[in-house]
């Protein structure tokens, strides 16, 4: 058992349902007790979805438990098949119902006998994988199912599209800014002269999956959802893929160059260098911002980054490489992806933390006292408590991550948006400090809590008086550094002279 107050990723069935309900005309049957069906609430409330969520719960109650669920599940599948005529019905249990160890595959096969549409059991272990892994797996399973089916029927097209083309894989319902990212990637592909063959699963039809192989390559912008499908398509159909997340100016260029290579290997003669140059230097404002005076003032500021693999790694690199900000800690809650993450951010941060325990991250933040945090909603609240500004860069999803206005994270406009996010995080924090500095000091005699009695050293009155002249937002740091200096030198009392000696010696 684990004492848990907060989770970064949801349970597996949420991942499966995100995939199923992203497709057009696919219905999911959730075999679960009453109350486990809150996915419908999340989709409706968080993403402000206009349509009914195509997920029906086949409710497991005491009676069902006693009688066995086979009949009810099959009834519900065939009923939905009739009522809504979906192309595909996906059956999934939840953590709870998976314990019953029923032969759900058999239920599916029985239901398929009567159903007009396809019926499938989502194949994930509900205790070993989380939402993200399950989504990645379910997407791959559905793609594999339809390609195998087409292959069997001899309906798999053997050719490629005439013009270079791409499948964009990994856009899902309830994905962090996925809808805007999809728009931005489509624009980017259009500017590169690449035809978008399919975007999936969001808005895709399973009927068209057989045409996936017509694309020249697959683009997998996110680390969490899509890679298994791209790997499958590569190993089975020899489709190359590009999995560099086009976030930030540098990695967007890197992604475009990788695309260029993939296209040219197939006989195209793409040359995107001039496009990249023009976008980087003149169209997008991100490179110019990095060079501007506003950004100069961010140089060397300390930040903590925490999120999923994709966003935490990308933001760490943007901060370190593009903006000269010191990332003192980069972390991810995707424990299963530790190696990749560590390798990606290793050279761009002082320390890496991979953990699902929000308390551990909160403690680290409190200890490191960064000037800003880039994290999830949880870190934002940690920041609120500690009075450190935080920009939200990753799921768990929140209604604020479904802005009505255009806010992609990917591509060149994404790079602009990320600049704003970073800059505003620092400056809104800065504003308070400036107000403190410039707001005049009409007798502020209060000693702030950072100057508490918790230390083993005593401060003389003049030392304290000097300490209190230091602006609040660096006072804690000066205090600690001075005490460390005093301890090292064996001073028992910290006077004004000791304070300034420490400043000279260690830059306290």
């Amino acid at each position, binding site marked *: 058992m*684990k004492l848990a*107050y907060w989770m970064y990723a949801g349970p597996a069935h949420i991942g499966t349902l995100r995939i199923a309900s992203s497709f057009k005309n696919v219905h999911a049957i959730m075999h679960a007790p009453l*109350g486990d069906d809150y996915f419908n609430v*999340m989709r*409706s*409330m968080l993403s402000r979805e*206009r349509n009914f969520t195509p997920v029906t719960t086949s*409710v497991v109650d005491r009676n069902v438990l006693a009688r066995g669920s086979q009949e009810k599940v099959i009834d519900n599948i065939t009923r939905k098949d009739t009522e809504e005529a979906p192309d595909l019905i996906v059956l999934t249990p939840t953590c709870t119902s998976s*314990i019953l160890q029923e032969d759900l595959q058999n239920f599916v096969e029985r239901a398929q006998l009567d159903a007009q549409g396809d019926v499938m059991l989502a194949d994930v272990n509900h205790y070993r994988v989380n939402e993200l892994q399950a989504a990645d797996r379910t997407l791959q399973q559905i793609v594999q199912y339809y390609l195998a089916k087409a292959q069997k029927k001899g309906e798999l097209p053997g050719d490629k599209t005439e013009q270079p083309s791409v499948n964009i894989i990994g856009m899902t319902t309830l994905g962090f800014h996925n809808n805007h990212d999809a728009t931005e990637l489509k624009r980017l592909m259009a500017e590169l002269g690449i035809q978008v063959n399919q975007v999936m699963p969001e808005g895709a039809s399973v009927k068209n999956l057989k045409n996936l192989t017509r694309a020249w390559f697959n683009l997998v912008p996110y680390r969490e959802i899509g890679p298994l499908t791209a790997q499958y398509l590569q190993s089975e159909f020899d489709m190359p893929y590009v999995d560099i997340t086009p976030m930030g100016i540098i990695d967007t260029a890197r992604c475009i160059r990788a695309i260029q290579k993939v296209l040219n290997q197939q006989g195209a003669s793409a040359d995107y260098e001039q496009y990249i140059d023009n976008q980087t230097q003149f169209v997008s404002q991100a490179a110019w911002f990095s060079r501007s005076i506003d950004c100069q003032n961010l140089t060397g500021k300390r930040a903590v980054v925490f999120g999923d693999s994709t966003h935490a790694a990308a933001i760490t690199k943007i901060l370190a490489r593009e903006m000269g900000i010191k990332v003192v800690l980069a972390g991810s809650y995707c424990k299963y992806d530790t190696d990749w993450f560590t390798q990606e951010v290793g050279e761009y941060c002082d320390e890496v933390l991979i953990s699902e325990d929000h308390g551990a991250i909160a403690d680290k933040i409190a200890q490191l006292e960064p000037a800003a945090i880039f994290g999830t*909603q949880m870190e934002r609240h940690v920041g609120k408590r500690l009075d450190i500004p935080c920009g939200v860069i990753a799921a768990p999803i929140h209604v604020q991550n479904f802005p009505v206005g255009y806010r992609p994270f990917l591509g060149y406009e994404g790079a602009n948006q990320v600049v704003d996010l970073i800059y505003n995080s620092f400056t809104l924090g800065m504003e308070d400090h400036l107000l403190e500095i410039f707001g005049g000091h009409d007798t502020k005699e209060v000693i702030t809590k950072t100057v508490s009695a918790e230390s083993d050293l005593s401060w003389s009155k003049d030392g304290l008086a000097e300490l209190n002249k230091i602006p609040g937002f660096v006072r804690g740091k000066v205090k600690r550094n001075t005490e460390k200096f005093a301890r090292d030198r064996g001073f028992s009392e910290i006077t004004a002279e000791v304070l300034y000696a420490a400043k000279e010696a260690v830059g306290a």
Partner: protein
Amino acid sequence: MTLANTQPQALEFDCDTGNYHTFCPISCVAWLYQKIEDSFFLVIGTKTCGYFLQNAMGVMIFAEPRYAMAELEEGDISAQLNDYEELKRLCLQIKRDRNPSVIVWIGTCTTEIIKMDLEGLAPRLEAEIGIPIVVARANGLDYAFTQGEDTVLAAMAHRCPSEAPQLESEKEERGGITKLLNFGRKKEDVAAEQSDYVDHPPLVLFGSIPDPVVTQLSLELKKQGIQVSGWLPAKRYTELPVIAEGNYVCGINPFLSRTASTLMRRRKCKLIGAPFPIGPDGTRAWIEKICSVFGIEPQGLEEREAKIWESVEDYVKLIRGKSVYLMGDNLLEISMARFLVRCGMTVHEIGIPYMDKRYQAAELNLLAQTCAEMGVPAPKIVEKPDNYNQIKQIMELQPDLVITGMAHANPLEARGITTKWSVEFTFAQIHGFGNTRDILELVTRPLRRNENLKGLGWNQLVKEEANV
């Protein structure tokens, strides 16, 4: 109001397939941990339960609240780990970090399915770590949404002392409400005031409502000379009311049938079966019923009710003559329907997750009677409704207002149907005379909003409507 036919029609009941949506009963921790200030709630379940608590309540709670998950992992499910040792480890940590007066274990579907013997483990662990442990099975196999509270209160009913404590200091402590009502007054005044009360057997009220409402209802009864000797739950676990055999008990929420039967059967109390004090009509009926049990002639209630109605006429006129459809979510549906009929609405259908006709008998009667008095047909009541059928019906009927769970509100709005979340009535203060305006504020809000938007012609915000 037209009193066409005051002979109540019989209510029609139905029970559907049960493919409906409502919240998990473990939701109750979200309000119970606040109500019982010295408690800690430990929900023993899976990642699915935890993610629900985190997300679905409409707000992510970030501070470490006084509830947490004991998340069952693969080793727990496959019984490779010792449940007792695992729970002990977690409870000791809770004791160390938060030191609550009670730990409430909330059993879930999973503990049911793996047959974890929580009731067996609790007394041993309670003895070992020295903190009371109350076990409630708020699982979705047997209960829906608000019934979670019922399971907790039923479990706590066992823990109420059966006689007044001997020590003066302890007595002081258990004096909760009375003490509050007399707070700051001189001893003599208090003594003098005791004479305001009629001499009647002890009355304990049950149901979790915010403290201000506790005060309001207690003051209401005091006006009739009735003294509330305690509330279940109290503000603190250590202030649980004294419940002795033969005491009277009365519920204030319609979903507390299990607590009611526990109090009757196990604590030998007498249940006052009244309509629930929701809306001025319900509040008046509730007080009248309690008065009648104690042989008291109620004073000024009719005028009181009339005055309240008068004061909310601006809101009532917005819904009078309009129709409402209750999809069914939180078991407040019968009381809400009765109140809305009294406001002049027509109720198409009442969905409800669970219908205890005995515990809700007085409320059902009042509903039938109200419909008759208001000259509207008695609505059909559907237990465990089927959401798919309901939505088809709603699209046909085009009611003026649909009270529904969170999953269906946005899609209905996008199709031009005005909706209100049922869950808001669970969290809002809706009991007593004084909160009438608050319920109506909630009920009328979507109507006021959509009235405002009507002229803009944005009613159909979905393009091609597939079959629902």
